[in-house]
């Protein structure tokens, strides 16, 4: 693994501070990400959870510098990778990090491969352009990589075009390209959403296996609580562009201290069949153009009181829990201890 600075176990690999991203639309300016902060340490998996429009994908796009232009722009905050702020460094320097130090797997494998080039060529291009391999060396490296990500008969299929592969296989090829140069940080933006359920499990298994082997850090963006439970170390819950709860995965799942997290947990069907009806969260996600005052979750929140309408809660430590469990709720202790499924 290439490490320009000596690895420090405590120092975060990536540190996002108070990130704000706005989108200019016809109807007005939308703050898609509003003051999001988090750290990713080397080798760990951070899951960013949230429903559509919560800002999780936009956060990853801001990190990778692929916000849709000219509509989206970062208006505040810092994205610090190994001590260098990606937002203020010259673009050429940041570009050199992409693909080599940090790379990304996209949601839809059907559209994230270039349809006009053979897959082996596309994988090998990483080696040719970044490592200066010759054509035949790059081809061999591509075949090896295809075998590593579990593509059967890689040597026969290296010259096929993307459309000749199934969705799951294409996602494996995407993963192969992303991992070609042994990045230290991989961002996986809903890597399994577009796949069949059985294939989802395979691809997730592959991602976590490769991550362990390489010792790389991963940001896993998803709305699938099940995917997160089995593969993440820590979790970041997002709602309406803000972080509402964060902490170690087991801690957050078992001691949810934000009504939104709690509501999500209650809406998962349970295998023991304790209740035959699922408990949904009432209402629908807020309009980002017209966020409710105070805590943006209060119109849907069973714990909401007057203070929630006036005052937007900060992301604060849940005092009664050990570790780094934090939640953005005025009544986090009450939510934590409340056993009723009121949501």
């Amino acid at each position: 693994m290439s490490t320009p600075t000596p690895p420090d176990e405590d120092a975060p690999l990536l540190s996002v501070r108070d990130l704000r991203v706005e989108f200019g639309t016809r109807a007005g300016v939308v703050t898609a990400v509003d003051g999001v902060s988090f750290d990713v340490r080397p080798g760990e998996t951070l899951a960013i959870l949230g429903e559509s429009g919560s800002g999780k994908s936009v956060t990853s796009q801001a990190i990778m510098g692929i916000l849709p232009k000219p509509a989206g722009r970062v208006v505040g905050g810092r994205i610090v990778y190994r001590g260098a702020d990606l937002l203020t460094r010259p673009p050429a320097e940041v570009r050199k990090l992409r693909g080599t130090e940090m790379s990304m797997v996209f949601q839809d494998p059907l559209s994230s491969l270039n349809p006009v080039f053979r897959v082996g060529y596309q994988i090998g291009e990483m080696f040719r352009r970044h490592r200066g391999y010759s054509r035949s060396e790059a081809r061999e490296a591509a075949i090896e990589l295809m075998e590593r990500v579990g593509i059967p008969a890689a040597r026969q299929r290296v010259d096929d075009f993307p459309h000749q592969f199934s969705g799951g296989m294409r996602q494996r090829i995407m993963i192969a390209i992303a991992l070609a140069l042994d990045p230290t940080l991989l961002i996986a933006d809903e890597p399994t959403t577009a796949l069949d359920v059985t294939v989802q499990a395979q691809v997730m298994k592959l991602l976590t296996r490769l991550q362990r082997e390489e010792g790389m850090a991963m940001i896993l963006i998803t709305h699938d609580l099940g995917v997160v439970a089995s593969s993440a170390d820590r979790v970041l819950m997002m709602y309406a562009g803000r972080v509402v709860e964060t902490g170690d995965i087991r801690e957050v799942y078992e001691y949810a201290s934000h009504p939104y997290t709690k509501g999500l947990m209650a809406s998962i069907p349970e295998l023991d069949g304790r209740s035959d009806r699922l408990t949904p969260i009432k209402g629908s996600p807020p309009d980002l153009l017209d966020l409710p005052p105070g805590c943006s979750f209060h119109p849907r929140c069973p714990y909401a009181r007057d203070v929630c309408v006036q005052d937007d809660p900060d992301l604060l430590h849940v005092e009664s829990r050990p570790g780094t469990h934090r939640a953005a709720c005025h009544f986090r202790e009450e939510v934590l201890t409340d056993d009723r499924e009121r949501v």
Partner: protein
Amino acid sequence: MSDVVSDLTRPTAPATPPPRKTGGKRPGSGRIRFSATVVSIYVFAALFGPWLVRYDAVATSTPDRLLPPGSRLSDGSLAIFGTDDVGRDLLAQILQGARISIAVGVATLLLAGIIGVTIGVSAGYFGGWLDGVLMRLADIQLTFPSILLAIFIAALLGPSVVNVVIVLAISNWVTFARVARAQVLSTKGRDFVDATRTLGARTWHLIRRCILPACIAPILVVATVEIGSVILAEASLSFLGLGTPTSTPSWGVTISNGRNYLSDAWWISTIPGIALAVLVVSFGILGDALRDRFDPKLKNL
């Protein structure tokens, strides 16, 4: 539903796709085959004809003036298409003219294509004020009647083959620019472009590897549709004396020459006219058929 392990070891798609049915099943096969044959005969004639039938622009032969098609010349050879007002063989002239027409058509499309695709890709990819400026420029270009513009420029530059190419390229780049821009706009938002960017690609690499390959098919279709009208425009300019100089026997020049003799030597204007019409119609059919097969979106072009 099979289990995970066996899924991993089994290829998910058959190694070879089922053989595609050849023949008249795909849209426009017959039209493509017919028109492509006609066009290739023209290209073949243009390439090799002038070698087989010698043509000399300044050689005159007064005894052989205005002979009708099928006449014997004074040197004993057969003039299949007859002769013109100074006794030059019309077949040789038409073959030479085919060479000029096709060469001018191809060169014009190359030039117009390069200009148009460059402008269209820049406008579509970079957007913003550049897009605004370039596309308004294209709009302004379109408001001029192209033949009028061509006459104006040809009058300034004088008649020559190179000038004809320049003139026609100026009045034809807009279609290429618009089609290229539309294609860029629909391609640059695709995931694979973002994916390539996250792998550290520069702008130039993105344009070359992601954007341009996506433009090739529609641009080729446009080129085929346009070539007929370009050849026709070249003939019109030459007919008006603003295209190729009279020493270069393009079809337009020959038709123009024969205009004074229409009543007693109809073949001088008519035969090159038919040759021109058949070629233009063939290119038209070919362009339509290729568009139907490869890019039905361009139907309203």
